[in-house]
Structures are given as C-alpha cells and as structure tokens.
C-alpha cells in the first residue's frame, strides 16, 4: 500500500518530462526533470549540498534544543501553577504572533551573521509549539495518578520523575515533532533571507546564477531532508512509546 504513494510523483515527473519536449516550454526558467536530477547528483557529488545540509541541520537542531531547554520547563511551570499562567499570559500573547522572520534584524544586531544568530531565530519560532504542548501536558496529568503518587507517599521530586515527566513525555514528543517542522522551515527561511550559509543560501545563489535546474534540485532535496528527519523522529516515537502502540487496535 505504501508503494501507492510513489505513483503520483512518478506520474507528475513523467508528464513534466513529456511537456518539456513540447515547443515553447520555458526551459530557461523551469528546467526539465532530467536536468534537475543531474544538478542534484552533481551537487551531491561535489560535496557542496552535503555541507550546506550540515549547516542547516546544525542550526535546526541547536535551535530546537534551545526551544526544548526553555520551552519545556516554562510550559510545565505555567501548566501546573495557575498563578504563573496568569502572570505569563500577557507576555506570551504579545510575543507569540511575532513572525520569526521579524526577529531576524534584532538577532543580527546582537549576534551578526552565522549559525548562532540562525539558531536563536529558530529557537524563537520552535519555542511556542513546544511550550504550549508542555503546558497542556502538565495540565492533563490524570488526577488519579496524582492520587496514586500521594497514596504511596512519594516526595515531590519523585512524583515529578516517576509520574509527571513520563506521563507528559508522550505529549511532549508531539511538541518536539511540531517544533522540528517549524525549526527546519525557519532555518531555511533565515538562510534565504539573510544568512550566507546552508541550503537556503545555496538556493538564492543558484537563483542569482540563473540555474533553475539547481533551484529545483535543492527544493527537492529540502523536501527529502524534511521527510527523513520526520521519519527518524517517528521511528524513535514508536520505539519510546511501545506501551502506547502495543494495544491490539494500534491506535
């Protein structure tokens, strides 16, 4: 059944290749599947694509880690203390709608070009989904489990480690996945907009050099990288949460 998913892209590629044979097809701006494929292969072989991928990936992972480092404790705090929630709500509601791209000038002023600036912008964007999921997770811990913890006279730190954290982890992981998606998008955006590194910069370079085959090749590559990153996380999820997927229905 999974193979079925490969049929539409194959058909599209085939139709695209056929169209490119027609007179009047804008080869100069749109290229053909065969050219795109050879551009992809040559960039892979000369190492430029892998290096750029590494740069983008590094900023994504650093940014996401920062978002988790700050977002999870903050989400837990406001999720479990209603007073902290009320204190934070004003700041959160004003900062959350700020587009990540709008943070770039400030980040540039403070950190200049480079991967630390990019990581900070990524962290800003990924912080919100991670924090909000952590807040919800802290709020939705089953009161029965809290009673079980009390009945067994566990101390507060033990209650956190044995009950709250594992109970929240399932939901937190959903936040991590959402955060990863956002982080990758924002990292490439920062590179396209200003930062001279990574996949985004490679694409703007190809555009400036009037190489539609390369632009498209990098676009396909970004899609593949995002898909693979998500697949790795999904695999980890199945491994980590066997208890949640083992029941007959499989969810």
């Amino acid at each position: 059944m999974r193979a079925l998913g490969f049929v539409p892209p194959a058909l599209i590629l085939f139709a695209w290749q056929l169209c490119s044979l027609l007179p009047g097809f804008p080869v100069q701006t749109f290229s053909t599947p065969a050219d795109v494929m050879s551009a992809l292969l040559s960039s892979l072989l000369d190492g430029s694509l892998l290096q750029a991928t590494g740069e983008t990936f590094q900023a994504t992972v650093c940014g996401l880690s920062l978002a988790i480092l700050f977002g999870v404790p903050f989400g837990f705090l406001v999720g479990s203390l209603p007073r902290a929630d009320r204190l934070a709500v004003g700041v959160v509601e004003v900062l959350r709608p700020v587009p990540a791209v709008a943070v770039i000038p400030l980040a540039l002023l403070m950190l200049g070009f480079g991967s630390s600036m990019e990581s900070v912008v990524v962290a800003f964007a990924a912080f919100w989904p991670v924090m909000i999921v952590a807040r919800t997770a802290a709020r939705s811990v089953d009161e029965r489990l809290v009673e079980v913890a009390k009945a067994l006279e566990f101390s507060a730190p033990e209650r956190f480690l044995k009950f709250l954290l594992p109970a929240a982890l399932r939901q937190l992981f959903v936040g991590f996945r959402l955060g990863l998606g956002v982080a990758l998008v924002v990292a490439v955006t920062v590179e396209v907009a200003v930062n001279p590194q990574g996949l985004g910069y490679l694409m703007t370079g190809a555009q400036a050099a009037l190489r539609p085959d390369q632009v498209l090749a990098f676009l396909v590559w970004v899609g593949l990288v995002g898909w693979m990153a998500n697949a790795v996380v999904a695999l980890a999820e199945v491994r980590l949460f066997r208890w949640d997927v083992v029941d007959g229905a499989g969810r």
Partner: protein
Amino acid sequence: MATLATMSLGPPPARVPSHSIQLAVTNAGLSIGSKCILQEIDLEVRAGEVLCIIGPSGSGKTSLLRMMGGFIRASEGAVMAQGRQVVAPSRRFAFVFQDYGRALLPWRTVRGNVELALEACETPRAERKAIAERLLYQVGLANVADAYPRQLSGGMQQRVQIARTLAQSPDMLLMDEPFGALDAMTRETLQDELLKLAAAREMTVVFVTHDLEEAIYLGDRVVALSANPGRVAEVVDVDLPRPRDQLTTREDSRFLALRHRLRGFLTEEGRR
C-alpha cells in the same frame, strides 16, 4: 448458632475485647460548599475484618472511603488510626481504585507497576524483581509480567492494582467498588481471590460496593448508608461460615435473609 438475633436491627452487638480497632470514624461530617455529603458518621474498623459499605448512589460511600484513606478531610469530627488523626494518605492503608485503567502507569510494564510500590517502600533494588514476581504469581499474572497494562483485560488490570497494593505490605485495604466494572464471572473469581489473600495475610479490608450480594458474600459486617445526607442507617453482622463458596454461601438461608433485610437500604426508601 445462626439465629435471627445475630442480624437484628437493635444496638450493635457487644464488642468482643479481642477486636482491636484499626480505624475509627467519630462523629464525622463532610460538606462541600453548602451541600452536606456525610453527617454524624460513627464507624469502627476492627483489625482483620472485612467491612463492606453499601448505600444508594448519593449516599457518600466513596466519599467516606476517601475520608478514611486520608484523601479528603472531614469537615466535622475525625478519622483516627492508632490514636492519631488521619490527615493524609498512608502506605499502611492501601487504596484500590475502581478505575484500574487510570490508576496504573501505562508506560510501565505489569511488573514495573508492582515495583512502583516497592520503590515507595524503599525496598532494595536487587530484591524488587523477585518480590514483584512472587506477588504477580499470587494474583495469577506471572506470565504477563512484561506486558503493558493496556494489553490486559479489565480483570487482569485490576489484579495488577491489587498486586501493587499488596507490595506496599498494608495493614488495611480500602477498596472503592473495585470489581464494579467487571463481568460477573471475573467478579466472582476476584471476590474469592480477595478473600483468600485477606485471610492469608490477616489483612483488614474496607470494601465499598453498590452490589448488596457482593457485600454480604465478602463481609464480616455490612454497613448500610442512607442518602441525602449520607448517614449510617444500619450495621449488620454477617454470620456466614468461612471459607465462603460462590454456590453454597449464596444459597444459604442466612444469606437470603440478610439480602431481604438490607435490600430496602439500596432502593428509593433507603434515601428517605
């Protein structure tokens, strides 16, 4: 010596001195807001007995049990255990929740759930596995120690919870309609297993149920609550021989007489 006198409605029978009192509820009341849930509750739990609490819905039987377990504080009066007021849950009084599905940690295996209580008791790490497996063997779950709770049937999940409470070596089990959500056959099996375990460990059991026959079958005494507000309407001694048997005990004329006697407390009349 089964006479009607043993189940008469008069004053409670003279207390035999050998009964030590494990838990005493004295003149306890519970109000939430302006609503009075429980009023003037006087009740003593004797060491080693199985005390069943029945009552129509709204009679506050679960609230009473939660008060005994230290989960909620009485608005008036007190719950005393060994001369001290019960103000918080204690490992000595193990609570078995009705909703086993929510009371088990889904991310821990069956054995891991039992070991949780051993961790609470600070049992040395090296001994936990063996103790947990012995308890699981006792409740008939030795072969699913590595399964996760969600893979088990309801009856098996409730057995896991019982094994977990046994792991904390309690003096008393406080059970809140533990078999209420199970099918009839599983319920009967678990009733018999509970009686065996309680007898073997000389454990005191306070058992809340809305099933009158279950209360008589399990109990040494049955407390009937009336509703709105919840009060002790009746305390009845169950004069049925042990060990009990699902067929013969339930056909015993004394069983049937008790059923007749107490039935009114579960119907509309019981609500007054």
